[in-house]
């Protein structure tokens, strides 16, 4: 009796584990979600924006002198300009097209490119990580 139990456990697990090897479709592609230069720049942009927001908040809290605030604000804005320039230099439509040509997920799909979470169509930000879509 116990051997039957073992055999059932092995067979059920075996089917469960090995079935994907013989499946017809791949619902994902390895490497598709790898960090690209665009992802890195967008991340930097999001972090820079957050830094700028915090800077303004801390200035209003009296945590920063006028001089410090102006210097840091300029620094954040300069960095934002460099990031935007970097994004413009990348051929974004081409990247999007290349990604879209692959099977599975693409930036146009309902997956966040940063964290991969499901996002409703038309949303401007990912509900999971806050990244602009």
């Amino acid at each position, binding site marked *: 009796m116990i051997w039957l139990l073992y055999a059932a456990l092995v067979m059920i697990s075996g089917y469960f584990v090995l079935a994907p090897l013989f499946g017809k479709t791949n619902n994902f592609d390895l490497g598709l979600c790898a960090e690209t230069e665009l992802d890195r720049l967008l991340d930097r942009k999001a*972090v820079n924006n957050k830094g700028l927001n915090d800077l303004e908040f801390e200035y209003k809290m009296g945590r920063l002198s006028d001089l*410090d605030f102006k210097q840091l604000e300029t620094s954040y804005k300069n960095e934002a300009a460099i990031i935007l320039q970097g994004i413009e230099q990348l051929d974004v439509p081409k990247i999007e097209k290349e990604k879209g040509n692959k099977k599975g997920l693409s930036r146009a799909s309902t997956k966040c490119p940063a964290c991969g979470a499901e996002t409703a169509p038309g949303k401007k930000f990912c509900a999971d990580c806050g990244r602009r879509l």
Partner: protein
Amino acid sequence: MAEFGNFCLLFALCLSLYALFAALIGASQRQPRIVKSAEKAAFAAAGCTTLSFAALLYLTFTNDFSISHIAESSSRDLAVFYKIAAIWGAHDGSMLLWVFFTALLCAIVIYQNRSRYRDMMPYVLAVLMIDLCFFLSLNFFLSNPFKQLTQVLADGTLQKFMPADGRGLNPLLQHWAMVIHPPILYLGFIGFLIPFAFAIAALITGQIGTTWIRTTRRWTLLTWLLLGAGLLLGGKWAYVVLGWGGYWGWDPVENSSLMPWLMGTAFLHSVIIQERRGMLKIWNTILIMLTYLLGVFGTFITRSGVVSSVHAFSDSGLGHFFLIYMAAVLIASLGLIAARRSIMKSERQLDSLLSRESAFVFNNLVLVAACLAVFFGTMFPVFSKWITGVQITLDAPFFNKINIPIGLILLLLTGVGPLFAWRKTSLESLRRAFFWPAISAAVVVAVVFIGGIRHFYFIICMALCTFVLVSIVEEFFKGALVRRETKGESFAAAVVNLTLKNKRRYGGYIVHFSIVMIFAGLAGNAFNRETKAQLATGQELRIGS
């Protein structure tokens, strides 16, 4: 049922080995089908360890004392509540609990990320499975909870033996905290495997950005919380049951739980700098590697018998395996970091020493120093025996002498850190920010001094607690005022929304508040008085002034 539990354990080991190799092959050949199969194998392994754990639970409740582990830790008259605790009341069962939790956490992480980070996940899976395979191997081959008692008959043959009753759970462990303390603590140890696995996967795939940190942040926080809760519950148990006259005795096993907590705290703080400023990438990877390894080291201390402790299981002969595993993980991780060092350079430098980044770095150094001090003190008996041949154990006074000043510096940083702005802060701004916390601390020092208390550390601790408390209140107050002005909300709504909209920052302050409460409690230790005396009937003894 014992055979079934044992079979499930062995089958789980086979499945996790398959998952490990399939994940690596799938990643190297870029075959999603093989990776998917590896993921399913990890789920199946989790299912099998669950069945194995359920089998041990069943055997415990049905009083099957032919099982060595159950005969050792349970008995017929043991209350149901404690029968559950009996599962982890001895070494073999506690190892099964460890394996059960590891397999479950692995399955949850793999399921959570089933459709994201596809390039990183095979390597995450491989690291998770290496850990699971190691512990499953130990559990099955060297520390098997389904081992049956046998007796030698007159003709020399072996026969199963079932005593009429078990030895029962150690009375010291028959306390409500012991039912929940080990599972919570184990989850606290094991959970750091997840950020470690993502860190290694990030190194392998060269994605050294913040993806792995963002993904594992909640896991890290939860694990850190559970480890902290486990430490506090252990303190509660020690206070009530052990009769040390306190909640913390700097016992090696207690220390081995504290070390990953300290290192994890450093990690939680320093990743913020990586996310915000792109700095400390190598440092963060080393921190999470050490945090994970310290968790393994904790179970090594508990199970190897290398240092004597009231909490430790007797020497189970597993020590060498733990040492080999830890050395292999350390060498492999450091090798990977060395190989990737060119892409792990900081994107920016510190703008100023008077900045929040600097406060975080200093906080990290102090936390690591505290961890090293505890590590050195804990392992001193081993080191002293290696060097001098004589085993010298360091007691509480050593640990207190080293760690009280370090703890107070940390408390100071808890208050000072948030008063600095990111990147740089002018002295004038600092003067304004420090004004009320410093004045409040000075008032408390004066009140305590006038009250006749002269204990140096108590006075300093209360002053720092006040400083931190006022700085936290000030943060909420000023933040709410800004929000009220900009959003037109009432003050109460502004406080609530401020916290909800920036949980990371203001949630952190709430945690800092709890740290203040803990330190205020610890300060009470200054008034502990312990006296031993023999009294005749009617004789009185006055303790303290």
